[in-house]
C-alpha cells in the first residue's frame, strides 16, 4: 500500500486537533478572520464533525477596518458551512473606553484587537480559541505549541511551554485560564494553497488579481480605494491604479498587496512557489520591531 500524501497527513492531523479541542474543552470557539488560513481551518472543522454541525461558533474580532469583499465572504461562508457566528467589535472597545485609538496617519487597530479578543473570550467564557496560525509564518510562531496555554490575563509565556509528544495534547487548566489551539501548525503557505486547490475551496476575491487604487508607503502597497486608510495630502497625487492581489487578508490598514496577475488558484500556486518574500513581508504589523509578533502574542494576540 502506498504512503499517504503530505496533504492527507496534514488534513488528518488538523482534524485530530479539532476533535481534541471539542473533547477537552467546555466552550471552544474558532477564530475566523475571513483570511485563507481561518477559511481552511473552518473547512476542516466541518469535515471533523460531519455529519454533525460544528460544536463551536466562529468568532470574528472585527476591527471595523474591513475590506467589504471579506465581510461579504464571511457572511456567505458562515451560512454555507452551517455555523454560528459571534462578533467582537473593536469599535465597541473604543466606545467603552477599554482602548484608545492610535493617532496619526499610520494608525492601525490591529493591536487593539487583543483587548477586544480577550474581552470577548471573557464575556462568552470561551476556554479555547482555535487559531489559523502556522509555524512557518513568523519566527515567534515557530515555537508555538498546538495547545498553547494562556494564563488568566491571556498572556503567553514562551519560555515555559508544555512539551508536546506523540499525539498527546494536554489541555488541563485552572479556572480562568484558557488555551489557544493551532490545528494548522505544521502547514506551510504552499500547503494551504495546494489544499485550497485540491478541495476547490471558494475564497474572497481579494486573493485574486484585480485593479485597485494603491498608495505605496514604506515599501508597502496599501489600499487607497476604500478610504479606510487616511492619506496625507502629499500622498494623494501618488495614488496609482495597479494590478494587485493580497497574499494575506486582515485588517485593511496593515495588509499590503503584491503586484500580481495571478487570477486562478493554479496561477497563485505557481506564484507562491516562485515567491522570494514571505507572506508576512506584506504585513505592516510585523514591521514595527524584530520581536513585534512575540510581544503582541505575549499580551494575548492571536
Amino acid at each position, binding site marked *: 500500500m502506498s504512503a499517504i*500524501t503530505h496533504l492527507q497527513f496534514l488534513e488528518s492531523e488538523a482534524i485530530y486537533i479539532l476533535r481534541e479541542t471539542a473533547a477537552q474543552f467546555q466552550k471552544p470557539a474558532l477564530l475566523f478572520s475571513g483570511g485563507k488560513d481561518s477559511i481552511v481551518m473552518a473547512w476542516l472543522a*466541518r469535515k471533523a464533525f*460531519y455529519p*454533525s454541525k460544528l460544536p463551536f461558533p466562529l468568532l470574528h474580532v472585527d476591527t471595523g477596518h474591513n475590506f467589504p469583499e471579506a465581510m461579504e465572504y464571511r457572511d456567505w461562508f458562515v451560512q454555507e458551512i452551517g455555523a454560528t457566528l459571534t462578533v467582537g467589535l473593536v469599535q465597541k472597545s473604543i466606545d467603552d473606553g477599554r482602548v484608545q485609538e492610535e493617532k496619526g496617519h499610520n494608525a492601525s487597530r490591529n493591536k487593539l484587537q487583543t483587548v477586544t479578543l480577550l474581552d470577548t473570550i471573557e464575556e462568552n467564557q470561551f476556554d479555547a480559541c482555535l487559531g489559523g496560525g502556522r*509555524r512557518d509564518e513568523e519566527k515567534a510562531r515557530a515555537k508555538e505549541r498546538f495547545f498553547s496555554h494562556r494564563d488568566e490575563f491571556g498572556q503567553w509565556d514562551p*519560555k515555559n511551554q508544555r512539551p508536546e509528544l506523540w499525539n*498527546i495534547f494536554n489541555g*488541563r487548566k485552572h479556572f480562568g485560564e484558557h488555551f489557544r489551539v493551532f490545528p494548522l501548525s505544521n502547514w506551510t503557505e504552499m500547503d494551504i494553497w495546494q489544499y485550497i486547490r485540491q478541495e476547490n475551496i471558494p475564497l474572497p476575491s481579494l486573493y485574486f488579481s484585480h485593479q485597485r487604487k494603491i498608495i505605496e508607503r514604506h515599501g508597502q502597497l496599501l489600499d487607497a480605494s476604500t478610504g479606510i486608510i487616511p492619506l496625507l495630502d502629499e500622498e494623494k497625487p501618488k495614488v496609482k491604479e495597479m494590478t494587485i492581489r493580497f497574499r494575506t487578508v486582515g485588517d485593511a490598514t496593515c495588509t499590503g498587496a503584491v503586484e500580481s496577475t495571478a487570477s486562478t488558484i493554479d496561477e497563485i500556486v505557481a506564484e507562491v512557489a516562485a515567491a522570494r518574500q*514571505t507572506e508576512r513581508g506584506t504585513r505592516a504589523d510585523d514591521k514595527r520591531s524584530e*520581536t513585534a509578533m512575540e510581544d503582541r502574542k505575549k499580551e494575548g494576540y492571536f
Partner: protein
Amino acid sequence: MDVLVNPTESSLLRFTTAGSVDDGKSTLIGRLLYDSKSIFEDQLLAVEESSKRRGDAHVNLALLTDGLRAEREQGITIDVAYRYFATPKRKFIIADTPGHIQYTRNMVTGASTADLAIILIDARLGVIEQTMRHTYLASLLRIGHIVLAVNKMDLVDFDEAVYNKIVADFQAFAKGLDQLPQVTPIPMSALNGDNVVDKSESTPWYTGPSLLQHLETVQVHSETAADEARFAVQWVIRPISDREDAKLGNLHDYRGFAGRMASGTFRVGDDVLVYPSEMKSKITGIHTYEGPQQETTPQLSYSITVADEIDTSRGGMIVKANEPTQTSHEFDAMICWFADKKTLKPRSRFHLRHTTNDVRAVVTDVLYKVNISTLEKTTASKEFSLNDIGCIRIRCAAPIFFDPYGKNRTTGSFVLVDEQTNNTVAAGMITKSLVDAGDEDAEVAI
C-alpha cells in the same frame, strides 16, 4: 531545484537532528533550507542584519527560528524548533533540537514524532559521548532510521580511513543497544555542501547517496496497514437531528466514533472488540466527509459506526476481535523526567494521559535510572530530576488499553501531568505489563 507543486506525488518525512554545539548542525539545516529555496529573501536579509548587529562573524542561520527575545539575547535555542522544506519528491518537517542543558527533554520531544534522526559527528573528533547519548535516545524512542552524518570531512582531507574508523566505532557501539536502528553513514561537509544535496567529487571512494537523495527516497516504517488495527475514540458524533443527509440518509440514529487510525486497517463488516466494555460488535460504516468508505488507511481520521449499542466514548478504543490490546492497571515504563522544580519518586501522583484517556496514577516503584553517558543502569537513587531517564512501575486508577511501545508508538506512549500545575512533566514508554493476579501468563517481558 524546483519547488514542489504537485501534492499528489509527495509523501511526508519527519526527522530530527542531533548534534553538539559546534558540529555544524545549523549550517547543515541552513543549507538544506537554502538549497531547497525554503528561506526567503526578506528572512535572509533580516538574519544578515541581525548577525551584523550582533557582531557575528558569519550569517547566523540559527536566528531564522530563534525568534524569541530571550533566545536572541542569549544566543541560544531554548526550544524545539520546527522547520519545513519541500523538494519535488517529498515534503519534510525537521524537529531541530538545541544541544545544551535542556537537551534530553528537547530531543525526546523532537524524536517522539520523527521517523528518522540525523546524528552529526565532527570527523576530527569521531564518536564521542554526545554521539552515544543521541543514539541511545533515538533508539529509546524507537526511531527506526539513523543517518550518521560524518561532518567536516574537509578538515580531515576527505580521508576515507578516518571515515571508515568512525563508522566502525559507531557500529560497535550501536550493537549494544536494545533496539538496533538502520544506520546510513554519509561523509559530508555541510559548510561546502559536499554530499549534502549533490554527490561530492571530493569523496570518489564513497558510493552511497547524498544526504538529500537519501532523505528523498528512504522508506520509513511508520504505521503500516499490516499492523494490528488500533483506533482510539476521541469524540462521539451524534447529530441528534432528523435531518436527511445526502450521503447518510436520516441522521436520527447516527452515532459515530470519531478518531484517527493509529495503525492497521478496518474494513466494513470486520468483527471488533470495543474497550472499555470489551464487548464484541461489527463495523457497519466507515465515514469521512467525502462519503462512506470501504476500509481505513493508517494515520487518517474517520467516524466509525458499529452494529450494536456499545458503551464507549472518549478514552475508549476499537480493535479487531482477534487482535486485543493488553489491559492492565499496572505496568512498567521507561520515562524521561521534564520538570526542573519538582522531582519524581515512589508515591508521586499524576494524571496519566494515554491515547485519548486520562486517568489518575501513582508511581509504585522506581526500578532503575539510566546513566545516559555510559548506558549503565543505576539503583543508587530513587528520585528523578530534570532530564533523568529510567524505568518506573506505575499503577492507574482504571485499567488502560495499550501495546508495548516497541510494538506501537501511539498505544505504547503516555505523558504524566502534574496535579497542581497541570504541566506535562514526563514522557513515558510502556515496556511491560503487570496483569491482575491469577493470570499466569501475565508477567512476561514484552
